[in-house]
């Protein structure tokens, strides 16, 4: 039995060499499809991270009534913290808020506001974040009902717009990836079927001289495994090195905008898993599928 398996691997390898052109076609179909998929995957993972990052910024600004006493304020904080789905509550004093405002308006208006610093008419503020950023708006609504709360600025318009935008982007992205995977499978199965189609006569002859189905199938299978493995290794290496180079080179550009690239380490293993898993699956599946049709003894 052991010798048999060896024979089949030897034959599979021989076939790869012998059918040079067909091998190249299958290999490139697998390789290119996995390359596209891999690139999409890397982009998707970064986009996911980006979206997490953005939604992580969402918050509810809670303004106290001017009349609220420190103890009432503390109680309100406790009440908010007790609400379900609250991730964090941060207190911002009117002094701090004034500085933030000054900063955000821009330096050229410094003079404008400097007169106000003495008689600070700003209310104290709380910054509340939700565990699920999509619940931010709902959270803001419940907080607005608390007695000591004057106004709530939940950025509901921004948040809603953002979420709608992200939804659209995600849906397009998802459709694209699903389309790609289907395309990949399809193109590869095409290639394999055509490859095999041209070997139909061979398979027929093998059967006629008494080869069992498995005897015929094995070399196709080992061939498929080899094609799958090689077809995954090449795009994996390409993406890995290209990404590493890009990370060190343009990572900074992204970073300064706000969205850090994911490090290669955390992407590499997932990428390898998907590419090799899919490559081997496609190769083996192609190997089996391809002969199946012609093995009705």
């Amino acid at each position, binding site marked *: 039995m052991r*010798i*048999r398996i060896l*024979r089949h691997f030897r034959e599979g390898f021989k076939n790869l060499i*012998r*059918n040079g052109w067909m091998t190249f076609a299958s290999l490139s179909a697998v390789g290119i499809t996995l390359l596209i998929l891999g690139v999409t995957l890397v982009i998707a993972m970064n986009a996911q991270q980006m979206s997490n990052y953005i939604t992580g910024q969402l918050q509810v600004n809670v303004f106290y009534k001017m009349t609220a006493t420190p103890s009432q304020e503390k109680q309100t904080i406790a009440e908010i913290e007790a609400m379900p789905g609250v991730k964090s509550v941060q207190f911002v004093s009117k002094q701090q808020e004034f500085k933030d405002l000054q900063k955000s308006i821009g330096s050229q208006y410094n003079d404008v506001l400097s007169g106000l610093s003495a008689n600070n008419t700003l209310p104290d503020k709380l910054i509340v974040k939700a565990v699920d950023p999509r619940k931010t708006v709902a959270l803001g609504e419940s907080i607005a009902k608390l007695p000591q709360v004057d106004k709530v600025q939940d950025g509901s318009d921004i948040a809603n717009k953002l979420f709608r935008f992200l939804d659209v982007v995600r849906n397009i992205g998802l459709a694209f990836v699903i389309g790609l995977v289907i395309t990949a499978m399809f193109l590869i199965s095409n290639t394999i079927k055509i490859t095999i189609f041209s070997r139909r*006569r*061979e398979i*027929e*002859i*093998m*059967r*006629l*001289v*008494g*080869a*069992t*189905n498995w*005897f015929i199938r094995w070399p196709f299978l080992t061939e498929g495994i080899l094609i799958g493995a090689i077809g995954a290794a090449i795009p994996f290496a390409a993406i890995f090195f290209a990404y590493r180079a890009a990370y060190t080179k343009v990572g900074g550009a992204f970073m300064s905008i706000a969205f850090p690239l994911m490090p290669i380490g955390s992407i590499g293993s997932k990428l390898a898993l998907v590419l090799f898993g899919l490559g081997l699956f496609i190769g083996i599946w192609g190997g089996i599928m391809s002969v199946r049709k012609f093995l*009705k*003894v």
Partner: protein
Amino acid sequence: MIEMQDVWKEYPTGTRALNGISVNIGKSEFVYVVGPSGAGKSTFIKLMYREERPTKGHIFINGFNIERLKNRKVPLLRRSIGVVFQDFKLLPNLTAAENIAFAQEVIGISQRHIKRRVKEVLEWVGLSHKTDVLPSRLSGGEQQRIAVARALVNNPTVIIADEPTGNLDPETSWGIMKLFQRINDRGTTIVMATHNKDIVNTMRKRVIAIEHGQIVRDEVKGTYGYED
């Protein structure tokens, strides 16, 4: 060894290739199958190794009941038979020697034994000098002889040959016939479709004549018949 009972074969196209064939071929018999072009000789032969299945009737080959034979078991049947196909059916990507070796690998013989045996049968058919040549680079007669060698290599109990001398000159044809005689003498059953009147009339054996899908003549030590 080979038994057919009222066998009919109609191809999906509607052609009735065989119309009620009943025949019995015993162990170590040597049978010629003759008949005009399109009479049904090849169809008759294809039923034996189950390339085609009968529309009706019972067939028993080497103890296999063709009707009941499971797909899985067909390779076993085919291994017990050596077939020379009318169109050779050599694997185009394998050399002469590899084509013959393939029939041996299929039944799990070790590489060492295969090598020795392949060399031997190539000598039998006079093609030792073409060992490593691809079929497309062999002459018609050379391809036919490789097909003969492949049919013999596993020492099958039955050899079925469809016009094994069609592309051979008389001298080489006689060489192949002597080879068949030698193998037949060792107890192998031989069924051979042929158009070669010379051979049939000289090397007298049982003759089954088929016309329009029916056996019209079955003679022990017969002649080719069909006077021109």
